[in-house]
């Protein structure tokens, strides 16, 4: 099966060949940071009137099938879901499988991210119910797309880019199906309460406003009003009550454990020392941290250094865990601006502490917003699958070219004052620092520091950072030097994968332009490690 959905390949501003047509729509090649400024008016949902809805506010219908029928389900529609229930989500599959049972064909699935639990969507693509996916793909879904089996082109967007695509009309959502850990009959919904509590519902916010039709699915119907209403009932068409929206054990982890890996701990400590010794860690600063192994350990080291120096952060953006909550309770940070809530301590905190605030990709990431929280933080620590000597980075594909991981908020976070990629220099004999990344997901203008266990490389464009840490005893090295050392350890440069000249997906930049293309893979190594990425 080949895709003829990508045509007119041109070379963009980072030197990558990208299609000018994606799934039948014209697309703009990447033009550099801030190089593309679309004009005109934002898209919107179709006009509704309250007279079309029950005056008593009760929008409940018996089941998903009824809701989808009332929403006017048709072939070719775009259905959206959200990943706040992570790998425990039951709602997305229920929505798509119900639509398929009702006979719908050629749907476009528009998730904010997919997880391994969504593997059965492959069957829906094979049967023709789903045409293609615009959203992150990994594991079996990633392999299906990477081998060119999907009928349409995959479109990978950041969380902010998803909002941008909805706002400027690139993606029109016909029906949004929102999983709600708590909801009332009017459709007000909240994520911080209930047996399937997940914290913030921020990923669903754009869809609730811009989709033509919105269905809230809940396993925890509460009396009106559901407070706080992260999703406003005024945007919701129908409410469906089900037994379960997800597997709580897969939604949040009970407790988040710090890594014991010596190498990860070393990288985390180097990153914290870098922030301290460069002067970025000062009273009133802010930072972004995720829930990955290195990012969590980094927070632990940084907190100790903040205590020692008697320094407090004004706010922290990020995926929240017990560790951030502890900092909040210890008075080391003023606020948590929460994009995603990862463990039970964080869920309890967001439900009870007014300084622990749910945010959305609109407030934090959206290109069409009048400013972003993500660009206001002083420092941000992220991972990557590959980085290259030009400081470009890859987060979506493995070195063998297969789709591995979604973009998540990664691209949006690159706009922080100092962006640090914390990565091992090689994994299982596979160098992470390479000559050219397989897929550019982040351009080098925005990547300031690459921290590895073998030393810290600073982007030559950031002379200020180079000056700031000079003589501080940090292992500052050139990226070329680290790369050469890794290649020596691994026994030479790794061979490049063979890729067909057939696009299977595109990587969008935060402004909607096409940053790079993901090509069809040829080789299938049955012994390659299985990957279960998220977002």
């Amino acid at each position, binding site marked *: 099966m080949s895709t003829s959905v990508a045509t007119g390949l041109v070379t963009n501003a980072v030197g990558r060949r990208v299609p000018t047509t994606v799934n039948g729509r014209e697309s703009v090649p990447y033009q550099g940071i801030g190089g593309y400024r679309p004009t005109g008016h934002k898209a919107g949902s179709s006009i509704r009137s309250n007279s079309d809805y029950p005056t008593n506010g009760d929008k409940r219908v018996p089941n998903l099938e009824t809701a989808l029928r009332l929403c006017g389900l048709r072939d070719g529609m775009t259905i959206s879901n959200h990943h706040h229930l992570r790998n425990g989500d039951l709602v997305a599959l229920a929505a798509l499988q119900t639509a398929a049972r009702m006979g719908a064909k050629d749907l476009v699935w528009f998730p904010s991210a997919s997880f391994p639990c969504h593997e059965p969507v492959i069957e829906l693509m094979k049967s023709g119910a789903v045409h293609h996916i615009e959203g992150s793909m990994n594991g079996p879904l990633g392999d299906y797309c990477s081998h060119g089996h999907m009928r349409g082109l995959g479109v990978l967007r950041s969380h902010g880019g998803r909002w941008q695509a909805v706002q400027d009309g690139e993606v029109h959502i016909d029906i949004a199906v929102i999983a709600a850990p708590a909801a009332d009959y009017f459709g007000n919904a909240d994520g911080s309460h209930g047996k399937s509590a997940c914290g913030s519902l921020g990923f669903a916010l754009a869809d609730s406003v811009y989709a033509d039709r919105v269905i809230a699915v809940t396993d925890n119907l509460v009396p009106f009003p559901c407070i706080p209403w992260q999703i406003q009932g005024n945007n919701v068409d129908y409410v469906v009550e089900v037994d379960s929206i997800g597997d709580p054990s897969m939604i949040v982890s009970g407790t988040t454990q710090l890594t014991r890996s010596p190498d990860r701990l*070393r990288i985390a400590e180097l990153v914290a020392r870098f922030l301290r010794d460069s002067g970025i860690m000062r009273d009133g600063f802010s930072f972004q941290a995720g829930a990955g192994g290195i990012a969590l350990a980094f927070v632990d080291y940084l907190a100790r250094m903040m205590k020692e120096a008697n320094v407090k952060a004004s706010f922290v953006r990020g995926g929240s865990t017990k560790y951030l909550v502890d900092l909040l309770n210890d008075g080391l940070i003023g606020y948590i601006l929460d994009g995603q809530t990862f463990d039970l301590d964080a869920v309890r905190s967001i439900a009870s502490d007014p300084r622990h605030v749910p945010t959305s990709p609109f407030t934090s990431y959206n290109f069409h917003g009048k400013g972003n929280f993500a660009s206001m933080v002083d420092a941000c620590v992220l991972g990557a699958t590959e980085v290259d000597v030009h400081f470009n980075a890859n987060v979506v594909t493995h070195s063998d070219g297969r789709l591995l991981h979604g973009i998540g908020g990664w691209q949006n976070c690159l706009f922080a004052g100092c962006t640090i990629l914390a990565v091992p220099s090689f994994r299982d004999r*596979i160098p992470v620092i390479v000559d050219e990344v397989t897929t550019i997901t982040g351009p080098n203008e925005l990547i300031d520091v690459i921290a590895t266990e073998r030393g810290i490389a600073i982007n030559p464009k950031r002379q200020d950072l180079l000056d700031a840490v000079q003589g501080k005893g940090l292992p500052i090295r050139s990226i070329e030097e680290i790369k050469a050392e890794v290649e020596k350890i691994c026994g030479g440069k790794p061979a490049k994968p063979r890729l067909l000249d057939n696009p299977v997906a595109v990587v969008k930049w935060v402004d909607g332009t096409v940053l790079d293309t993901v090509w069809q893979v040829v080789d299938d190594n049955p*012994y390659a490690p299985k990957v279960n990425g998220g977002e």
Partner: protein
Amino acid sequence: MPAAAETSVARRGEAGRAGLDVRSDLHVSFEERASGGINVDLRSRVDLYYGERIRQQVRDVLRTLGVEHAHIAIIDEGALPFVIAARVEAAVRRTGLGQGMSALPEAVALPAPSARDRLRRSRLYLPGNEPKYFINAGLHAPDAVILDLEDSVPFAEKDVARLLVRNALRAVDFGAAERMVRINQLPLGLADLAEIVPQSPDLILIPKVETPDQVSDIVGAVESIAKRSNVGRPIWLMPILESALGIENAFAIAKASDRIVALTLGLEDYTADLGVAKTSGGVESLYARMRVANAAHAAHVQAIDSVYGDVADSEGLLRWGEASRAMGFEGMGCIHPIQIEIIHRAFAPTASELEKAMEIVAAYEDAQAHGLGVVSLGSKMIDAPVVQRALKLVARAKQMGTMIDPVTSGEES
């Protein structure tokens, strides 16, 4: 039935590990053939990137070992080249082939030879058959790494681990760390020495020493192998005392050879010998530790403490280390890299100690310059042993790099 006859006499050997929970290692299954050349059946996580190079390396190793016809099946979990060479050689040797031959990996430059009295605050134990811990061990900057062939290696894997450790001594850059190997008790330890000594380890740890004669046996073996293989660098010895008898003979053992630079003890075996429980407070081993510290100082070698087993308890480790230093020890073992920094802190002089010592040293130098026999500080006369202790402390602090910015341990307040 020539084919059947052939398989019935074919020699087979296996080595290494593979599986979902295994990283940076490989499993090799080697089978000698009568004809047909070398057939490599490779399944590798990194096939796409290094598959061809792995196949070539395997052929090269087999040629070096004198093998011309074989079927070799490999499951590779991303092992580095020095590991691949060691596992293939081990599998071949287990068939009885390749005896007396070695397929050595490319050597990295060695650090400067180890000085007799260098710092030995922390020594990081690396299980000798777990290659994944080797490559980055030096990055954590311990004073020494110990490639362990003894307790962390199951008896059935001694031959395989020995080759892996040998290759690591050649091919892994451990940075500035002193390269130590803990061998097995004799006679197994002799086979370890035969592979290890030609690769210039800086120090050999001798387990379960109870008498000075045991040290002499090792010294004889080390010296004859070193001579045969032209090893020009010093190879020091550190006996480990792990029994009541060993503790009683501590001084005689410490004096058994000029190559001995340090004396240490193993508390698991010692407490087992006594038939008592090993506690976190360590009251049951107090005598043994004091005896070892005293014997070591009497013999002018370093006294080195055992390990602290609870990796999660950094407070406990710091307390243990500080008490250890107070008893006269100069270092201890680490079982996880996160212990290194804590141990270095524990064995560093405190800021006030250092300040005082520097004052005394300055007064001593002043007295020397003026040809005075008596050192005085203000109105107080300083006794000679106090001066000696201050000189020692300042010299050590210089080695630790704590002179300019005295380590203030921070935990005191």
